[in-house]
C-alpha cells in the first residue's frame, strides 16, 4: 500500500512537471527552456536558443484572437503592445541574437508609461503648433517685406 502511494505521488509530481513546465509572467508564457536573466515584479528578461521569427510565431499564436493587441516592427526588435486592460504592457523580441540566444523582455503595464507618453504627446501638440507659429511668423514677415518693396517701387 505504501509503495503504491509513493509511486502515485511520484507519478503526480512527474506529470505536474511535464504538464506545467511553462512559466507565466503576468499571464504571458515564458518560452520553455529559456534562461531568465532578470526578473522582478515589473519585468522579466530572458534568453532562448530560438530564432526571433519562431518566438514571434509563438507569441502570435498565444495572442491570436485577443483584442487590443498591436504588433510593431522596429528596426532592431518586434514590439508587441497591449492597449487593453491586461496586466502586461509589452513583449519586446530582439532581432539580433546575442551570444546565448534571442533576448525577450516582458514588461508590466505601468502608470509611468501611460503618464510619460501622455506628457510627451501633450508636448507634441505644442511642438506642432509652435512649428506652425514659426512658419507663419516667417512667411508673414517675408510677404510683408515683399509687399512693402513692391509698394515702394510703385511709388517711385
Amino acid at each position: 500500500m505504501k509503495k503504491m502511494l509513493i509511486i502515485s505521488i511520484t507519478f503526480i509530481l512527474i506529470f505536474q512537471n511535464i504538464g506545467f513546465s511553462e512559466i507565466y509572467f503576468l499571464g504571458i508564457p515564458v518560452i520553455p527552456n529559456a534562461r531568465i536573466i532578470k526578473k522582478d515584479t515589473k519585468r522579466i528578461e530572458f534568453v532562448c536558443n530560438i530564432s526571433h521569427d519562431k518566438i514571434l510565431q509563438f507569441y502570435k499564436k498565444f495572442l491570436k484572437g485577443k483584442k487590443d493587441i498591436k504588433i510593431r516592427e522596429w528596426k532592431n526588435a518586434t514590439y508587441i503592445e497591449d492597449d487593453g486592460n491586461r496586466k502586461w504592457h509589452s513583449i519586446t523580441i530582439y532581432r539580433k541574437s546575442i551570444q546565448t540566444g534571442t533576448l525577450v523582455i516582458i514588461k508590466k503595464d505601468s502608470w509611468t508609461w501611460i503618464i510619460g507618453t501622455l506628457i510627451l504627446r501633450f508636448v507634441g501638440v505644442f511642438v506642432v503648433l509652435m512649428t506652425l507659429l514659426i512658419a507663419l511668423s516667417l512667411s508673414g514677415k517675408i510677404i510683408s517685406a515683399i509687399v512693402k518693396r513692391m509698394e515702394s517701387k510703385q511709388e517711385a
Partner: protein
Amino acid sequence: MTFNEIMDMLRGIIYTTGIFNFDFRIVIMWGVASFFIYLAIVKKFEPLLLLPIGFGIFIVNFPLVPLMGYSHQGYPELIRAFYHYGLEWEIIPCVIFLGLGAMTDFGPLIANPKTLIIGAGAQLGVFVTFTGTVLAGFTLKEAASVGIIGGADGPTTVYLTQLLAPQLLGPNALAAYSYMAMVPIIQPPIMRLLTSEEERKIRMKQLRPVSKKEKILFPLITAGIIALLVPSVVPLMGMFMLGNLMKESGVVNRLVETAQGSLMNICTIFLGVSVGATMTADRFLSWKPLFIFGLGLLDFAVCTAGGIFTVKIMNMFLKDKINPLIGSAGVSAVPMSARVSELEGLKADKRNHLLMHAMGPNLAGVIGSAAAAGMFIAMFH
C-alpha cells in the same frame, strides 16, 4: 378555413409587429431622444446636429425596425448604409471638415500667430481625461476617444472614436456636440473664477490686416507641416485646408458654395442620424455612456482652464498682454466659445471687443485638437 388556421394567421401578424417584441428599456431611450430633440428645437442648442441625432436615437429604438441591421441578402439597411459608408469609411467627418474650411477665415490667427500656443494649451483636458478614463477601467483606445471630447470638435471626435473605439461612437459624439452647445453655460463661471477683474479688462492691440497672399499660403503651409509632423490626421486637416484654399483662392466660388452649403448639409444629416442610430438601448443603458457624459464635462472644464492658464503663462513673457478671457476659446467650438469670450469681455469693459482676438485661439483649437487626435491615432492605431 378552421379556427386554428385563423388563429395561426393572426399570431403570424402579431409576431411581426413591434408591440409583441416590446422591451421596456426602449422607453428610456425615447426619453433620451426626446431630451435631445427638445434641446434642439426649444433651446436651439446645436439644432443642426442634435435634431437628427435625437431622431436617430428615437427611430432606432423600436423593435424590428429594419434600419441598422442587414437584409437577408446581406445588404446594409438604410441607416446602416449611411453609417457604413459615411462613418466606418471615415468619409463624413472629412467632408464636413472640407465645408468648415470653406467657411473659415484664418485672418485673426494669421495676424496673431501667438494664439496658436493657446490652442495647444487648451488640449490639457484631453490628456487629463485620458488618465481619468483609464483609471475607471476603460481601455487605452477608449480613453483616447473619450479624452478628445474636451477638444470640442465634433468631426475630430467622430473621426478618432470611429478609428479607436467605434462602440463608443454614439455617447462620445453626443457628449461632444451637447457640451459644444452648452459652451455659453459651462465656460463663463470657469472664466470668471480663473481671472481677476483687472485681467478681464486688458485691452489688446488691434489686429494687423492680413494680405490675400498670406491667406492663400496659410492652408498650404499648415497642411504641409501637419502632414510632416502628424500624418495620421491628414485626412481631416488636408480636407480642412483644401476647403480653406478654395475659399481664399477666390477662383472656385461654385465649389466653395457647394462645400459650405449643400455638401456639408447632406453630410450633417447623415452624420446626425447615423450617430443617433448607434445608440440602441442595449448599448446605451450601461454605466459607460453615463460616465462619458460626466467625464466629458470635466474634460471641457479642464480644457477651458488650460487655455486660460496658457494665456497667463504667456503674459509673463509678453510686452503686449493678452486678455486671458480669450484663452477659453482655445477649446475650438467655433465660433461659440469666441462669442463667449466677447460677451465676458464686454461685461468687464463695455468697450472691449474681444471677438476677433478670440477667433485666433478658437481656430488654433481646431488645429490643436486635430493634432492631439493625430497623436492618439499614431499611438494606438
